[in-house]
């Protein structure tokens, strides 16, 4: 938020040096709360994806635990899976990063 466009009566202490709202005495906590929510979001997306897939597999009569295990094993050295993991980590843990231009 731009300094000039903050509410006139906003105490400066309610924002951190990066301009974001600061709620906890230890600013690190303000970074961890988003991580927890991000994790919950990712977990739900996966849960819903699995539920959709399971419904499809059951509907088509092709569900097979053995086949799924084999696919997982084959993915161990899959670069696409590695890239997906990196994107996953970025999506969740970006709030932990220092804002650009803010000294540690």
């Amino acid at each position, binding site marked *: *938020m731009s300094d000039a*466009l903050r*509410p*006139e009566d906003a105490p400066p202490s309610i924002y951190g040096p990066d301009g974001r709202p600061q*709620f906890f005495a230890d600013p690190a906590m303000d970074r961890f709360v988003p991580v927890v929510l991000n994790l919950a979001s990712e977990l*739900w*997306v996966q849960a*819903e994806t699995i539920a959709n897939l399971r419904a499809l597999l059951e509907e088509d009569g092709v569900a097979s635990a053995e086949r799924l295990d084999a696919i997982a094993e084959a993915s161990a050295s899959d670069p696409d899976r590695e890239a997906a993991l990196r994107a996953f980590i970025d999506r969740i843990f970006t709030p932990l990063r220092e804002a650009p231009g803010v000294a540690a």
Partner: protein
Amino acid sequence: MVLQLKHAMRPQQAAEDVARGRFVSGLRSFILNDLAQDMRQAYDQRVAPAFEKAHGRPPESSAEVHKAMRADPAFKVYSACRVRAQSMVWDAVAPVVQRERAKLEAAANDSGAAAAVKLAPDMELPRNVTGLDVHLMPGGYAGDADFPMAAGAVYDQGLAIFSMGLMGQNLDDIGLSMSTYVRNAFPDFKPARILDVGCTIGHNSLPWKQAYPDAEVHAVDVAAGGLLYGATRAKLQGLDVAFHQMNAEALDFPDGSFDLVFSSMFLHELSAKTRRAFFREARRLLRPGGLLLNMELPPNSQMGAFEGFYLDWDCYYNEEPFYKGFRDEDPRALCRDGGFADEDYVQFVTPSLGIYGAEAIATAAASDPLAVNSETTGRLAEGVNWFGFGAWKR
């Protein structure tokens, strides 16, 4: 619940988009219900008694409650979660909008909306548009110059998640409810020309065309991206509304050219100076017998200190810096400062059309206007009701 938009500009969502949107909507519901209830309990049981012990009286204003609540863990948890959940709304839809860029731009061109919308590329945008990521939406209403429609599409799709299904099938419940109330409360009022100011994507402009099909409806905003998207959205819904890029402080229409000047959730996004200029403009634009009607947040003077604090939270943490300043103002005085007579002031609370139906609105319109307070409107009120105020021009 997460709302699936019903209009033709709705996105083609992948399974992951649906899941992500559903999660954020559910998370917001948890924060705004469960965590908000914890915060109220913390106030009643810890914060207010401690304040009273220290000051010999309970907190009397929104600002006093805010200051006292800042140290309480329930406030910290609620606030930190709510800020992140707000950003997650936009994070959930921005990739969908980028993916659909070609489709959106083709729709704007093919529908004729891009040619019809009256943009003012040389207009200087006000700082409340360029200087804010309003509602924590990256880029705010100004959006991305390279893909102007994105701001409108992100707003539309984000609001669908944000609203938790409480703002209508096409996010038009405010306009639908207000126009239904006006038709019932003022049956002799037949506006021929209607203006919606600060329309964003025109989601609450369109209901006026539906309520008064013979009327000429105009919708204005300063942000081009929302207008281009909104004009396309209107065209594809088969509704003839003219969209213009204009500043509410100086609207480029002749004196006495409208019967109804409307705004919704607009005034709290303006500085006090711009707000006053808009009221003067509204009066100038109205014909004798015309009505200025604003749907807005209820004023602080008509709420308890805690309820006021609860609404004012957005001012400090949701990039809406003028929110509390507006809510501290007296709606009647705003109209008076704009040149309207006190005896011509109107205010009411209307039930949501989508939730309670037309009959409930007809009943409300036939009764004395409801008192505007925390029992009848605002985020902590029971149910969904919308507050309207304004004035007739003699």
